[in-house]
């Protein structure tokens, strides 16, 4: 039993799988972005080289920083993503629960954002602090949308909070996205995920041109390697979560494997296309968008789900 759990956490849906797949999908992201700009793009092992290079460099602990917070923030964020990927992965690949439901997942993903805020605010740099403040504002915007859209599959599956129960409902009655409320929630979910991953158009906290990577600015060496790895791991965690909630999970037999890969690539490519075709929005227009348009639309989706549409 313990060996099985350790296998879940350390190898298959957990640490190793998410990290390696994340770095590979990070390469897909960089390559597709390069093709968007008529460039050739980096070689296949580029992200692995970056990661190992950063691990071997000197790690500078800033004198003015709050040391324990500065050091632990990327590691705790890494742990949170591993736990979320274990929960989502065991439900998707083994169809068994890992002792956590969808509320735990929402908490853990919020802890990730809080760790970005802690890491940025503790580093003693003005730009990092501004980046952390912007991350808080962005979190205020996207969190409510994210919670509301996860309510839609919960309501449709008869108020089930367990991931396996939601999957079971979709095996019986078809994917949630086939209904109108599910479709609206899926589209809003893609946008909310874009903000949660701080990708363009919502890379406001890490604005390279004015805040020079914001919260990550003072990080170097091994700690920066973990931040970069976290960023790529989110390319695995969030699409798998969307597949679980809206696209009906995986049937890993025969053609089902092909469908599984296609579902995953569909979401990743949609994320990359949104990322590459939109400029960065200002923080006020981002909040405007989330509070004025996205949140009411998410409410509409929830009401439609209650009505059974």
């Amino acid at each position, binding site marked *: 039993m313990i060996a099985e759990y350790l296998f879940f956490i350390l190898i298959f849906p957990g640490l190793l799988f998410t990290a390696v797949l994340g770095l590979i999908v990070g390469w897909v992201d*960089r390559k597709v972005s*390069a093709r968007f*700009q*008529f*460039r*050739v*793009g*980096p*070689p296949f*092992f*580029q992200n692995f*080289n*970056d990661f*190992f*290079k950063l691990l*071997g*460099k*000197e*790690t*500078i602990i800033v004198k003015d920083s709050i040391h324990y917070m500065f050091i632990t923030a990327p590691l705790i964020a890494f742990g949170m993503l591993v736990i979320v990927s274990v929960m989502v992965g065991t439900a998707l690949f083994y169809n068994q629960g890992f002792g956590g439901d969808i509320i735990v997942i929402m908490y853990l993903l919020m802890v990730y954002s809080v760790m970005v805020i802690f890491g940025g605010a503790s580093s003693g740099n003005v730009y990092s602090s501004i980046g952390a403040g912007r991350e808080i504002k962005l979190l205020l915007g996207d969190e409510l949308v994210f919670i509301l859209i996860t309510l839609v599959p919960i309501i449709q599956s008869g108020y089930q909070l367990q991931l396996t129960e939601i999957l079971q409902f979709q095996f019986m009655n078809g994917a949630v996205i086939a209904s109108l409320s599910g479709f609206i929630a899926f589209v809003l979910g893609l946008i909310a995920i874009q903000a949660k991953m701080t990708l363009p158009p919502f890379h406001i906290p890490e604005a*390279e*041109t004015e805040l*020079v*990577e914001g919260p*990550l*600015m*003072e*990080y*170097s*060496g091994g700690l*920066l390697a973990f931040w970069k790895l976290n960023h790529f791991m989110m390319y695995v965690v969030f699409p798998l979560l969307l597949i679980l909630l809206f696209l009906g999970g995986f049937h890993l037999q025969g053609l089902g494997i092909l469908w599984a890969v296609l579902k995953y690539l569909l979401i990743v490519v949609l994320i990359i296309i949104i990322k590459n075709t939109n400029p960065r929005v200002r923080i006020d227009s981002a909040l405007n968008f989330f509070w004025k348009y996205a949140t009411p639309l998410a409410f509409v989706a929830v009401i439609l789900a209650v009505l059974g549409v």
Partner: protein
Amino acid sequence: MSWYNKRLAKSIWVFHVSASPCNNCDIEILDLLTPKYDVERFGIKLVGSVRHADAILLSGIINDKVSPKVARIYQQAPKPVYVIGFGTCPATGCCFKQTHNKDYEQGHPIPIDLYIPGCPPKPEAMIAGVAKLMEVLNA
């Protein structure tokens, strides 16, 4: 170490310091980052913070006013970090050799590992220069 140096050679992240340049080289660096030359093929990336950098691109004559700041930037970079003297100015002084605000006989505030001469050097010359750095790292 050779395994690590090979990783480092494949992902050199560059931080650009303009230490009192005439802006000529800086414009040429922007040319280097256009899709036509695409340095991301070699894993080279321009980063905004010196804490992330593996190489410092230094352009300009590094006069007395900026040299303490350049030294401080060099101290802030995580080691190993390589300094690339970019253009003729860091190498020989070019037309600013007899300027009143820089004494070339005293040398530079930081050690420079690699010079890419030219006023300004062409993007091809810059890529060739960084490729020489990669050769040294791979050896």
